[in-house]
């Protein structure tokens, strides 16, 4: 594990998963490694009332019903499509679910404009085909096909980024639950084992890139993940994810609660402003998601660690924030400048504290970017 930059969930939380499996007495669907209740517990964390010997921390923050609906979808005949804005935790939830259900979250196809049907079904090892001819040995199964063979959950990231004909290759997989290999004369059908399912994610902002066909939509249950707006939940997410990232970088920097509040408050302010904007020019290009908050905080901490005095300061946080959010010039810069002078400045005068440093840092960053 220490050799991995980012360990998959089933490796990282192997102890927890083993423990949950050991205490799980409920019936498990198909070949699931945990019962649906334990999957939910693994994702959403345990309570005292669950009566477990150890505490299972919460790993995904959001409405409980989203997780429940996702779990029951995977236990049913349909695939699961997690839909939402960038940074709402779709992929993270997909990974957690896959790891909890089948202890394997790595069977992933990344949807891009260059994804082909081979990436979803199978391809051939050309040298082996030349030397031995076409056979199951010379065939390279895709992650989805592997998932079918093993009866586990396969993942398809950014489904709507791949082209329509590639997407449609999933229709038969989700309907008939087998893939035929016409190149072979015998042993030419791969049947999905019980437990096979697909978790796909799609960015709701990119829906128009390659919209799903009705036939494919019908085979997926959609669960829409909204942007987290609850401040308390958001603070938990940011703290949880940032700690994880910093542990990966082996950095030990304390995030002062006041600075975390400033970060959350400023994102909340900017979201409110974006909601009231009447044109795209009046709102930031950024989706202002929780993931971006995490990115800003991580950037600020790294900056403090390597170029600062190893303590996170409001000035640094402001600089990172402006740098991350100012993507268009002059539109984004103008919005941020307006925010600094219209909202942060009065608040700095009234509350003082970290807001003063945040204002100074923000001004410097804007000046440097302008």
């Amino acid at each position, binding site marked *: 594990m220490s050799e991995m930059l980012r360990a998959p969930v089933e490796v990282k939380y192997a102890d927890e998963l083993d423990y949950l499996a050991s205490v799980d007495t409920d019936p498990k669907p198909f070949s699931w490694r945990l019962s*649906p209740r334990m999957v939910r517990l693994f994702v959403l964390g345990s*309570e005292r009332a669950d009566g477990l010997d150890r505490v299972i921390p919460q790993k995904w923050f959001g409405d409980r019903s989203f997780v*429940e*609906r996702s779990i*029951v979808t995977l236990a*049913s005949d349909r695939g699961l499509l997690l839909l939402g804005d960038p940074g709402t935790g779709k992929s993270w939830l997909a990974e957690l679910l896959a790891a909890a259900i089948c202890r394997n979250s790595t069977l992933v196809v990344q949807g891009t404009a260059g994804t082909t049907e081979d990436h979803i079904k199978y391809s051939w090892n050309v040298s082996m085909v030349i030397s031995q001819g076409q056979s199951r040995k010379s065939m390279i199964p895709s992650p989805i096909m592997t998932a079918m063979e093993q009866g586990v959950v396969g993942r398809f990231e950014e489904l709507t980024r791949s082209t329509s004909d590639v997407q449609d290759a999933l229709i038969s997989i989700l309907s008939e639950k087998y893939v035929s290999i016409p190149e072979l004369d015998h042993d030419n059908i791969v049947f999905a084992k019980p437990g096979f399912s697909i978790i796909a994610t799609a960015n709701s902002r990119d829906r128009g890139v390659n919209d799903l066909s*009705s036939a494919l939509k019908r085979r997926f*249950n959609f669960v*829409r993940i909204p942007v987290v707006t609850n401040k308390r939940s958001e603070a938990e997410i940011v703290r949880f994810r940032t700690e994880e990232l910093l542990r990966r970088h082996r950095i030990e920097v304390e995030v002062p609660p006041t600075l975390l509040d400033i970060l959350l408050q400023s994102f909340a302010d900017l979201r409110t402003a974006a909601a009231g904007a009447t044109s795209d020019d009046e709102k930031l290009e950024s989706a202002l998601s929780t993931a971006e908050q995490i990115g800003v905080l991580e950037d600020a901490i790294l900056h403090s660690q390597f170029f600062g005095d190893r303590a996170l300061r409001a000035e640094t946080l402001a600089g990172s924030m402006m740098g991350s959010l100012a993507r268009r010039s002059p539109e984004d810069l103008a919005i941020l400048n307006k925010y600094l002078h219209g909202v942060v400045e009065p608040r700095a005068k009234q509350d003082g504290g970290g807001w003063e440093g945040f204002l100074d840092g923000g001004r410097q960053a804007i000046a440097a970017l302008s």
Partner: protein
Amino acid sequence: MTAPVAGGPFAGLRHQLTAAATAFADSPDTLAGILAGMIDDVDRALAVPLEIFPVCHHSPASALAVVRRLREKQPQVIYLELCEDLRPLLGELGNCRLPVAVQAFASELDGHPSEWGPLSIVAPLTEASAEYQAIVYALETPGVELVLVDRSTDHVFQWLPRTPEAQPDGAVQAGEEGGRPGDDAALHGDAVGVEVGDLRPGFAELEAYLLHHGKVRHWSEWWDQYVEQPLADADHDTYRQVMVLIGSLFRRLRPTHSERLDRDEDRERYMWTRMREHLATSGVDPGRCLYICGAFHAASRVEQFGLASDAPGYEISPRTGTRWRYGLIPSSHSAIEAQFGLAPGSVSIAAATWTKALKRSGLTPYRLEGQRGTRTRGRDGRDTAAPATGPTDRLSSFLTAPPELNGIDEAELRGWCVDIVRLARRNGYLASTADAIAVYETSTLLAGLRNRTRPTPYDFTDAAVTCIEKDVVPGRRDVRRLCEILLGGDRVGRVGYEALPPLARDVLERLRPLGLDLQKRTVQRALLDLHADSRLAPCSDLLWMLRYLLPHDAVRPIMGERRLGHRSIQESWDVALGRNQRALIELGYEGVTVEQVLEQRLRRAVRGPQATAAGALAAIEDAIRLLGSPRLIGELGTRAVELLATERTVDDAPDVLRRIRRLLTHHRATATALPAWCEAFVAAGYTHYCTLLPSAFVDEQAGVRQVGAMLGFLFSMENLALSLGCDRTQLELAVAQAHPEAPAKVALHWAARHQLGLLPLTELRDCCAELLANPLVVPIFPQYLSGFVQALDPVPGLASFVVELMSTAFAQLPDPILLPWLPTLITTLREHGQELVPLLIREAAHTFPGTLPALDSWEPPWVKATPAPAPPIVPAGPVVGLLTGHPDSVDAIAGLLGCSNPWQRHAQPGRIEVVALLARHPDTAAAVVDLLLVDRTTAVVAQR
């Protein structure tokens, strides 16, 4: 207060719980105290000889338990936790279709802060509620008395802290949370809601804790799963004990000494005092009475609780002088949900559960005879009353028994799945039978995941959303909303004709010639040919009045209008009075006829603290349009004059000008003489605006449009004002005293001086030319132009000059100055187009060529070569005679000055007659010479 019995039926349970607290809790004393206290509360409530029946609002389990108990006990008196002054209305429920709300309304406040007005309280009633069943039992059973014992609606507001954000206790402002915006959700308006059996955790953290650990999303779902379902088929004793236990739990787990708790306790003192008074006066046996209240109040610990208490009665303060009016208004499930912060669809689900439970249990609910929608009639409850028995412990068995496994109601769930797919298809979803199967499977899985024995409507809704909802909603309703419709849907009540206030009945009667069913909730089209059918004229009058008084969608004219001096001969209306029944009923609280209410409203409009002269003129217009009462118009007009004279700002000047012009035109066209108030208004306005004019010219707050309107008033009504005794000098002085600095106002000032003859057009043109020639002023020249545009109305004679100036500006101003100003010009003309544009267009059409070929040869009239000015005609006289007689000196001076033009001599033809005339009558010329101090003798010689 009755003390709990030390041993008693609950001793075993109390001991068990205390032992458990000691064994498991971190701080056993606290927990043991709470648990034992809860048992004490149950014990005490059950020991009271007057049977306390705890209920929760909109709970089918409570309603079922009440029906069972009423049939069994046959009480003689029912005490109900509802505002005592609402009692007389309940008899009218038979004329209504539920859900309806009992309303108390007050618009004229006496004793309450005036800014709270109008005050409105509603108590909605649905069939699936315990209180409704009790009310119907009492109304339908001979000899049974129903006594409402809660504080009066006046006390609800009396007890309210005098702070702006104050909310009544036990009462909820509409739309606080969970409300879905929409027609039916807004049926209660902004009324405060009161209900029997408000039962929710006392603080947000406890509710959040219960929801979190109950693994549910909202309170309605928690209640349904953990209380409603287990108690649905419980026997009377179990139901009663469990409900008191829950009431006690929420009572004990709430902040002590909170203001709300104090108020709740005051209400309990009030109710017990009222009940004791009634028992004392009526002499009825307490054992034959039933006290129906919220479970929270059943676990009360106030000193007046019970009948054995020696505590003195609660001192009830007298009601204020506020005059309350009462009525029934239609309600709906969604309105109740929005009012009390319940989850959308929860009341509908409760109604569906009630119907299902009735079918399952075979119980016949109580229904009022003749009530709309009644299918069966309640049995006459004159059976033998069950004998009273002492309390026995049912709590222990209830709390320790495993949940009853009813098993899944497969047929019902299957029906839902099929129906939701059908409904979804009808609403544009590509749903199929496969989806129905998926919804069924997912519902079952979700219920299992959530520890439920069978899928609840909430599980079904989640499953349907998961399986059918995709990335976009194809129609108006999403799947969640479709599920709400499927599971009962919103039901909207209706107040019957007999239960309507006199005004509403009068309206329905008077609109009968339209031939429409006005109680319907649909929008109906009424066609009125006033020429063909004279009976429709009063209907038209009434519709126009209702248009003024009711919300705009209640009656909407599609064709036809009524303005000053104009009546259509054909009208077409969209009438939706059934949908706006509440508004019509509330109108009935204000008066007996629509005319009376309208008159009151118009008077209020001009008498209020915010009344303005413009508002008063608008009221006069409405009075003329809708009522035509000269007495009222005169009264409003007099008030308008008073208001104008006391106004210190000129903000409304444009509105005042527009309206008074219209009214003057109307009166001139329809009467031989102007009414006295009109003359007084013009005279007062002339003086008023003359006084304010100098300060308005320099005041930054007064806009150029306002000043323009003041000038418009002064110039356009000058003749009338002067005829009424006003003095023009006042206006001249006012203009002379004005020294504006803002460019637009300077232009207006110039225009005013021009109108008064103080600034000739040539000088005005020169002023503007200087501005354009000065590079420092050019950037603000458009502002001058704006001022001149506003001057078009007060000084219409300047229109040609404005056209000229505008053309010059367009020709000469550089683009960076001109272009930013163009939007201002366009928006100004667009906003005030009715007054300014016709004049400008007419003048422009007159000035510019009408055809394209004419444009080539066209030359602006103001740039045409002006002929050389004619030499001044020098009047004949001694001086002229002297100079013409001896021209040498003049010629020499002219030569020195380089002037070569020959000057006119008197010898020219045509002037001889003048010379002859002067020679015959030299006195005039001599007098002029005197004036010019010329030597008379010389002059005479020269003349000769």
